[in-house]
Every structure is written in C-alpha cells, then in structure tokens.
C-alpha cells in the first residue's frame, strides 16, 4: 500500500536553518579525571572494574555488570588497531583535514578500545593489528581532542612498552597531581587564566548543524501571498474553520485543508501582552505590545505587534488593521506586515470573538 501525497507541485520556499547548541557538559569525577590527565599529564586513563578489567575511555560504571568502576589507572599512549575505516573526504568538523583513518584502538593495558583518528597518510599504511601512538596537542584544555590523532608507531619495538607504570589512582589523586587544584578557575569566567587550571569539571563542545528549512505547500502559498500584500488562509473541509497562517491541515479534524480563503487585513485583538522585559536580540523599544489578532473571517488568531498607539490603550476587542511593509522592504515572512494599528472603529462585541480567546 502506498500513497503519494498530492499531485500538484508548487514552488516551495526554502531558507537556511542553523541550529546551535553552545552547551557545556559537566564531566563528573571519572571523565573529569580522564580530561584532567589528558591536559596536565598528556596521559590516557582507564577505569578499573571489580572484575579486573580496564575500560578505556573510562566510564563511571562497568558496561558488562553495571557496577561502579573502582579507580583510575594509566594506560599506554600506544596500542593496537582493532578495526579501522578510511575517510577519503574529511568533513570540516573531523579531527583531521586530510584523508585519515578512524580506528578503534586497544591501548596497552586496556581491555576495551578507544575511537580516534589515525594520521597514516594512506589506507595502504593501515591494517588491523598495527600499532599506533597518540599524538598530543602542545596546548591542551581537557578535551578528547587534546589527542590530535594517533600515528603509526615507529621503530621495530612498535611504540611504548605494553605495561604502563603506576598504580590505581582516585579521581582526587588525579585532580591534585601535577598542578595545584584550584576549582574556582576551572570556570573560564573567573578570568584566572594564569593560575593553575584546577580539575576539569566540564567540557565545552559547540554543536552547529546547518539545515535547510522548507515551508511546505501551504506555508509557501501563504508567504507568497504576503509578498503580494494578501493574507491567505485555508478552510477546513470538515469543520469549516479558517486557519491563518495555514499549515495544510486542520489540527482538530486531522484532514488536509486545500480551499484557499483571502482574508481582510482587519481584525480584533483577542488577547495581548505588554513587553517590559529587555532581552538579547530585541529590536523594538520597550514597552511594546504583542497581541493575538483574530482577522475577520478567520478562526485562529495571528500573533503580531500593535503599534501607533500607547501600550496602555491596547485592550481586548480593539479593532485593528495591518500595516504592510513598504514594497522595497518586503520580506518573505510575517514581517511583511510591519505591525497592526487601531482602526478607530468601536470595539467588537465580546460574543464575536469569545470562542477564540
């Protein structure tokens, strides 16, 4: 069974849509110790388990048993490739800008493998079972990318000794080794960059994803209408309600809305709020009024600005009309309407809009 959603093709409007997540993540004691040792000691830590294994990269728990891991131990910065993949065309976010291998690497002394990049020059230089050695960045911040990449181990010995030195450490011992602990300065906002950096308590990994946004048929028609100084809604064939902006469907009935309805630019304020709070990116001087405006003939309110009157004059039932942008400033979106302004007509009777408050 298959369906083809509609036959008519209309030119669909499209715009870039960039999502950014500039989050910090708290690292906790185990991952924080791993990041701290990377930064301060250029060492890779594993977590020891009650069953005698060493998990790298370290976790707070043993994935096999669910039991808490018991401590931290240095593992070698060299190890064996257990599987690999060759990236011919690296993306801009990948660790290396030139072709490289991803590999799972079982470091000396570890029982699980770590994923990282291997700079081997050519896929011919890669093989399962080969030895590779970590190449640390000279400037490190406590982040998995402090390991710039791994490189094939040089020499017949094939990298470092298989038995890393040192015993089991607690996170506190890792945090206090090398540099004096200074928890306050773990936060860059304290501005103590010259002080000992203290334990790594969080990492920052900005995420940026660039999408296309496509408006779909109904919204494209609506936006094209605005560019022609028209407000186009759609009527539900089932409940006859008129949606503006239309989304191609009646959310109540769950059916497609195809019938187009041109609406007047006049309507009634059904509810409103006076914005007194400044916020980043605000374009209008406070106080200003945003309102839900029920256009005449529509069944759903449109959200927009009310201007050309004092904020305290705006009220429910107030009659308003749209003020279009100047043709040279026209934009494909609701900003095609600059704002709504009072018409001066008598207020609408409450009964005419009470269903829509």
């Amino acid at each position, binding site marked *: 069974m*298959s*369906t*083809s*959603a*509609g036959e008519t*093709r*209309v030119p*669909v409007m*499209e715009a870039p849509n960039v*999502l950014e997540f500039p989050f910090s*993540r708290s690292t906790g004691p185990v*991952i924080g110790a791993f*990041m701290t040792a990377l930064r301060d000691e250029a060492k890779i830590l594993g977590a020891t388990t009650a069953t005698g294994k060493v998990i*790298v*990269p370290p*976790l707070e728990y043993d*994935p*096999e048993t669910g039991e808490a891991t018991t401590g931290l131990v240095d593992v070698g910065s060299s190890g064996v490739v257990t*599987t690999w*993949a*060759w*990236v*011919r065309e690296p*993306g801009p*976010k*990948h*660790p290396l800008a030139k072709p490289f291998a*991803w590999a*799972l690497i*079982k470091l000396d002394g570890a029982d*699980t*493998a*770590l*994923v990282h*990049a291997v700079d081997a020059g050519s*896929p011919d230089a890669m093989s399962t079972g080969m030895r590779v050695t970590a190449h640390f960045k000279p400037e490190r911040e406590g*982040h*998995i990318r402090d390991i710039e990449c791994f490189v094939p181990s040089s020499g017949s010995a094939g990298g470092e000794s298989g038995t890393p030195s040192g015993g089991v450490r607690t996170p506190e011992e890792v945090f206090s080794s090398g540099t004096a602990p200074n928890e306050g300065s773990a936060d860059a906002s304290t501005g103590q960059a010259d002080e000992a950096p203290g334990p790594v308590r969080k*990492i920052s*990994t900005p*995420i940026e*994803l*660039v*999408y*296309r*946004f*496509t408006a*779909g*048929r*109904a919204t494209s028609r609506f936006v094209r209408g605005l560019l022609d100084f028209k407000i186009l809604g759609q009527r539900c064939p089932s409940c006859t309600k008129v949606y503006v902006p239309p*989304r*191609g*469907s*009646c*959310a*109540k*009935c*769950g*059916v*497609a809305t195809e019938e187009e309805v041109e609406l007047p630019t006049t309507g009634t304020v059904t509810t409103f709020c006076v914005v007194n709070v400044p916020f980043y990116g605000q374009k209008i001087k406070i106080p200003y009024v945003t309102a839900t405006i029920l256009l005449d003939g529509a069944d759903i309110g449109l959200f927009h600005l009310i201007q050309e009157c004092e904020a305290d004059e705006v009220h429910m039932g107030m009659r308003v009309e749209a003020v279009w942008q100047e043709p040279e400033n026209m934009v494909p979106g609701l900003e095609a309407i600059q704002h709504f302004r009072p018409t001066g007509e008598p207020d609408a009777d409450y009964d005419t809009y009470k269903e829509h408050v």
Partner: protein
Amino acid sequence: MREVAVVSFAQSVPARRADEFNEVELLMPVVHQAVADSGIPKGEIGFTISGSCDYLAGIPFAFVSGLDAVGAWPPITESHVEMDGAWALYEAWVRLQHGDIDSALVYSFGKSSLGPLTDVLSQQLDPYYLAPLWLDSVSVAALQARAWLDAGHSEEEMAEVVSASRRAARSNPNTQLAGDPDLKELLAQPYLVDPLRRHDCPPIGDGAAAVVLAVGDLARSVSERPAWITGIDHRIEPHSLGARDLASSASTREAARRAGVGRGPVDVAEVHAPFSHQVPIVAEALGLDGGVEVNPSGGALAANVVMAAGLVRIGEAAARISGGSATRAVAHATAGPALQQNLVCVLEGDKR
C-alpha cells in the same frame, strides 16, 4: 498475553527530497490510509503513538505538530518515542496488553533530507568521547564492516547483498534504488569510507509509515487474515563502541531468542540493516537458515526513511502474512550506531 495483530499498513513513496510537503503534509495521507484500511473508525482507536526525531529536520517539537495529521480532537490518548516507529509499535503492543483498549495507531515520519544526516547522527553518540570527534554515521558503519570482514568475510558478500536488494526492489514501488547490478561492477566502484562503497550505504529518503494494531476478535472482524504478533522483544548493547563485538549482534540474538524466532519455521524475514554488511550480521543473529527469504522488499539498502524504516519492516512482513504468501515472518528494526539496539517481532497468520 492478549492476541495483537497488525491489521493495516501504509507508507509513502520515499523521496530523496520531499520539499513540497511539510512533515504533516507528508504524513497525513499515510495515516488516513492506514486508518481507512484498518476498518476501525478513527474515533474508536484507543491509543496513538509516533516515532520520530526532531533533529533530522532540525525542527523542535516537530513530533507535536505531527499530531495535526491525526486530528487530536476530541482529546486522544497519545504517546511518542524519539526512535524508529518500530519502538512506538512495541509501546503500543505493551499498551494493548493492559486490556482496556483494543486498537492502536502507530506512525512515524522522517525528513532527513533537510539536514546533514551523517553529522546529525554523530551527535547521538557519547557526548564526551565521540560526538566531539564528529564521528559520522557512515564511518561508524565502516568500522563495523571492517570488523566483520576481519572475522572472515569478504567484500564480495557485501556486493551480493547489495545486488539482491536492488533486484528485490524492482518489484516494490516504495523504494529509491532498484536494478540488477553486476557484482564486478559494484566491486569496481571507489570506496566512500573504506571498506564501504556508496552502494553499501542506504539512500537518504523522506517519508512516513503507519500501522494499525488490533486485538483478538476486533482484529478478526476487520481483517480477513490478521498478522498476529506472536513474539516481540528489544535489547540494547553498551554505547561504547570499543566495548562491543561489532562483528556480530548479541542484542539481536537475545531479542530473537526472547521473541521466539526459533520456535518454528520462518518463511520470510524483513531485516532493518541500512548498510550491506549488516544484513548477514542480523540474519545470522536471528538464526535464519539459508531457506529463509530475506528482504523481499529490498530492505533498508533500497529505501531508508530514518525513523520509519524499522516500522516499514514490520509492515512489509505483516503484509506478506495478510496477503497469504507467508505463514510465519520475522521483522527486525535497529537503532543507534552500528546496530546498537535491536527489536525483533515474530508475525504469524492463522493456520488454514
């Protein structure tokens, strides 16, 4: 256990870029058809659940607007999983076991053409050790493919899987890639991410799918041959790739055991394995013998609407039961990197 059956299934024709439809416009005809074909009036469906992922199209709360396709008035009982629709179907099956309702609508949709899909999927990985490396989804699959090859397999086997998928897809209108490629030509193609060639990877597609489930006598009254769910289970493996055996699928094996795949002969299996090497990994873990017809639809290598492709496997297997060409079928769905999480569903028709 209450008897639960798939009584209808609908899907859209997957499109490389369904730009002319927003997600609701894409989903609505599919939901309408599944409900109409179920023979159960929309207002009598007891539970509605969707599976989708807002990150695919980069539209927060897209799953809420998806409800516009259903018409959630008067208010309905509704749920959502940020997973493939196969997991939504699992929740619906559990919900039907409660005993107070007799039918459920399950739908899923995805528009991954709008975003950088392989990067988007990298952000589902461990946020400390993997996501900051932007380990993309094709590269994860390539690491698994190498592990599988190193376990004694060949690139020829991968090419054979691709060729079989393309041939099967010729008789399925709901696919993106069909044909009859020559093995030698496939193997002569350059690598995308070694050891994967482009054809070892699934196409990107926009689409939707919907299934209606019904219980016992209701299923019998609306369907001539309900596809009874006689076993369903899902299992997950550690998220740390280096803590897993990537060359086999322990979670599929365990889910198959619990779902009872081995309790009888299997006529047909629909396997959700988006990358070529994953088809034999899953088939082996399901315990399918050589006589089982695997992916007569072409599988996820021929069409892979992310978030719907697993539900489509259940729908395709159910359609084989209801159509009478199979008596016992197995459907499989996967989620997460390199087959991390796997769902197995056994479907059976009444004995005739």
